[in-house]
């Protein structure tokens, strides 16, 4: 209904504009929407049936556009939009259940290409040195021995190599020409970081159980591990693992005292932020004590800090439109609240 109203409004104002300025040069009525200088949210979409989508919110909060890929291209992204990665002008949208990556211009969202072969349960995309893309793949989720990282030649958008890795590869971070892959463990649990250089695994680092998120700060990799969940048999507490990237060794491990399962590590300046049991905690990297300071309340599906603000998504009941909340980290107060698509799982900054 809103769209109809809005279209009507646009139609009427166009009419008015045309009527009042018939002497002017004919301006093109449609201007391609620019999705830069804003936040992009990937929405997984309904679990079984349907398509994920991308929401755009401009940095001045004046423009909110839902389903931007479909708006621009007229086609759906596919089932379970898991995540998105970037390289130069391009966005690489990983569509998990449809086993593909859609490539679009990150500012106009016009479709450029797609990668539809060679991906099996793709999870995340990370680019390196301008022409290589790395994609974590679970393979068959019931088979722990077929997991791999696909290497995509970004000039042709074809897979040039597959790197066999331990099971359940998930999030990645690239730093100094290396890709650090966190093995969260797929449907099960794992406790590894694979270090990829070029097209091979250079080393693996054992961390805590279920490494679910990572950030890099001052040549240190901070890995937040959720710990084994209660249904895994032996439940274990979460931990925060600090890895010195010059040596590739774990320099410190901070354990949570009680059996709790933190997630969503992100960083704002010197402060690590993460979520745990319906609260967001803050820990200073220079003096880490867990759990740290409780700053915000809420059950969030994804967290990203950027420029003094915390962006937190809420997936609600996972079967209706979700929300994105923006908090000012100087006051820890919510400053904005936007509707997103269904199951907002990824938050990205498109500046």
């Amino acid at each position, binding site marked *: 209904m809103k769209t109809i109203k809005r279209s009507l409004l646009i139609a009427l104002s166009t009419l008015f504009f045309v009527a009042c300025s018939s002497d002017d040069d004919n301006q093109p009525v449609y201007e391609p929407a620019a999705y830069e200088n804003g936040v992009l949210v990937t929405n997984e979409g309904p679990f079984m*049936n*349907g398509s994920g989508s991308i929401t755009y919110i401009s940095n001045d909060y004046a423009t909110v556009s839902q389903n931007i890929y479909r708006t621009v291209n007229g086609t759906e992204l596919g089932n379970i939009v898991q995540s998105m990665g970037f390289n130069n002008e391009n966005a690489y949208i990983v569509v998990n259940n449809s086993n593909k990556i859609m490539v679009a211009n990150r500012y106009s969202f016009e479709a450029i290409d797609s990668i539809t072969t060679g991906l099996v349960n793709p999870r995340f995309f990370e680019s390196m040195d301008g022409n290589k893309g790395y994609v974590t793949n679970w393979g068959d989720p*019931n*088979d722990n021995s077929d997991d791999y990282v696909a290497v995509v030649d970004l000039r042709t958008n074809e897979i040039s190599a597959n790197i066999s890795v331990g099971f359940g590869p998930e999030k990645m971070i690239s730093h100094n020409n290396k890709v650090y892959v966190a093995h969260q463990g797929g449907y099960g649990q794992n406790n590894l970081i694979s270090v990829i250089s070029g097209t091979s695994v250079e080393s693996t680092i054992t961390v805590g159980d279920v490494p679910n998120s990572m950030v890099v700060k001052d040549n240190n990799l901070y890995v937040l591990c959720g710990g084994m969940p209660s*249904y895994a048999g032996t439940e274990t507490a979460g931990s925060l693992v600090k890895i010195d990237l010059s040596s590739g060794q774990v320099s410190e491990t901070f354990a949570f005292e009680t059996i709790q399962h933190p997630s969503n590590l992100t960083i704002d300046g010197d402060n690590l932020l993460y979520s745990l049991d319906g609260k967001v905690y803050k820990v200073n990297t220079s003096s880490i004590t867990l759990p740290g300071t409780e700053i915000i309340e809420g059950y969030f599906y994804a967290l990203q800090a950027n420029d003094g603000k915390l962006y937190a998504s809420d997936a*609600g009941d996972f079967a*209706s439109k979700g929300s994105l909340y923006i908090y000012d980290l100087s006051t820890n107060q919510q400053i904005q609240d936007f509707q997103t698509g*269904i199951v907002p799982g990824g938050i990205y900054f498109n500046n």
Partner: protein
Amino acid sequence: MKNLHYHFILAIFLCSTSVVAQLDSIQQLPEVLLTDSKLVHFSKGFKVEKVNDSIVERNATSLTETLTYNSLIYFKENGFGMVSSPSFRGTNASQTAVIWNGININSIFTGQTDFNVISPLNYDNISIRSGGGGVQYGSGAVGGSIHLNNTYTFKKTNKTNVGMRYGSFSTIAANANTTQTWDNHYLNVGVDFLRSENDYDYVGKGKINKHGQFLRFSAKVNEARRIRNGVVTWNSKYVYSDRNFSGSLNTIGKDAYKDIATRNLWQLQKQIGIFKTKASFAHLYEQFRYIPDSEKSNYDQGQANSFIGGLQTEVLFKNKIRLNGKAEYTLINGNGDNVGDNSRRTLAAVLLLNHKVSDDFNYGVNIRKEFLNDYDNPILYSADAKLKVSDFYSLRINGSKNYRIPTFNDLYWYAGGNIDLKPETSYQVAFGQQFSTGNLKTDVAVYYITSEDLIKWVPKNGGIWEPENISETRNFGAEVTFDYTVDIGKSQILNLNANYSYTKAEDLKKEKQLIYVPFHKATGSISYSYKKLSIYLQGLFNGEAYTTTDNSDVVDAYSLLNLGVDYTFPVNPNIKLGGRVKNVFNKYYENVAYRPMPSRSVEIFLNFNI
């Protein structure tokens, strides 16, 4: 909630002050007997519709198809022939009970019956009972129940029929069925087979259904033997189904599913003085294998055995008061890769009363109490009344408390299962009126259902989903059915049939319509026959249904038309040849979002009646 009861009791009281007979919704030849007689004797104030054999024959692919076109139940199908679940009066998929010869056969694991695994050709009588049937039929009979009954007779019978069907998408089907009686014996044996490549077009999408092949085989044996002062019956059923699961518009199907069910029911019925006594024993077995990748051999599996022993007795005082008491013990053993090894024992005591006050008025009161369960043992009750105001007008009213017990998946699923769940409970009232003058029959029904403690899987901290008794709903709606047969003369008969329902089903916390419950559904048919030739048109309208709990997305409304023709050759053995076109206008439609249903298809059939 309490108020509802009082209103309902008041209504019963008001009705009982007026007078007058009964008009059974199920017309039954006296010499043909149902194995589940409760459906006839203790459902007078409920709407019970029998699906005619000729209608079953026209929509014989699956019970989903039969009921989609001939009832007001909405079905969600993940593509044609795939998993199919009903929404009856806006209730959820596990709130429609499927009753086989009086026994609830909903899955122990899911609480539902997959309507695409049931062949409608295996039964002598398929009836739809609208409204709560928890007292008689146990868990899940909330929106209503579907009754699959086999009958028996000792009248001289020697009947065999063989049917064959061939249709689009490489679909072949065959069925054979024979019924014989001799001395004091009745025997009915039948088999049924269906197989399809199911590779239909996604109309206008430039794709085909690549991974939706299915196969279904079922067999039945029904036997009855007359003994002194009684009868012994045995009903047996075997079903095997093997399906690849279709993908959706934007995913490619990979998984597959195989399931097997066997059902056996032995009953010994004896007249002891004024007591008509029945001892019964039933065994149900269900097994499933879910194969995540149809090209690989690994799978998740589960199986369950149910043993049900029952003893009941019925007395009829002065042809007016019919009283039935029953005790039933059920033992279920289930195990599966995701639920472990568990069992459930239930003892249920049921008391049913029907009082025929006069030829024109009767009422019933029913009560059920359960014991032994490890959750709160509910007391269920229902009451109903039927009043014949005149020869062509009758009224009925009923009210009931019903429940749906947590399934093994809800309780024991690894990880997330919640053993502290309570049963879902629901209260309802329904009122109906029927006008019937010779060839014209119309029925108008309204109902109101409130449900609480509905089990819903919700995401918990740490990404695990757990079921909780959190949701509350309120459903109300109206159903209108119309049927008119005209004898035009010169051997020509015209039949018009139309059904419409309005369904409002609301989540009371969100104040939104429940997902996959369309407000409007309508079905209709026009049949014309001239001597041995008949032609029919079948129409279906499914209104828009929401697919998200905030009602932000919908699956579009659609209407479909089927056209069929058949001719019976007047020879012996009697041969019937016919065909039909489904989805005549080749429309794109889906009843689950992004799950396309078939393009236009053609089917021909040949039946021999010997």
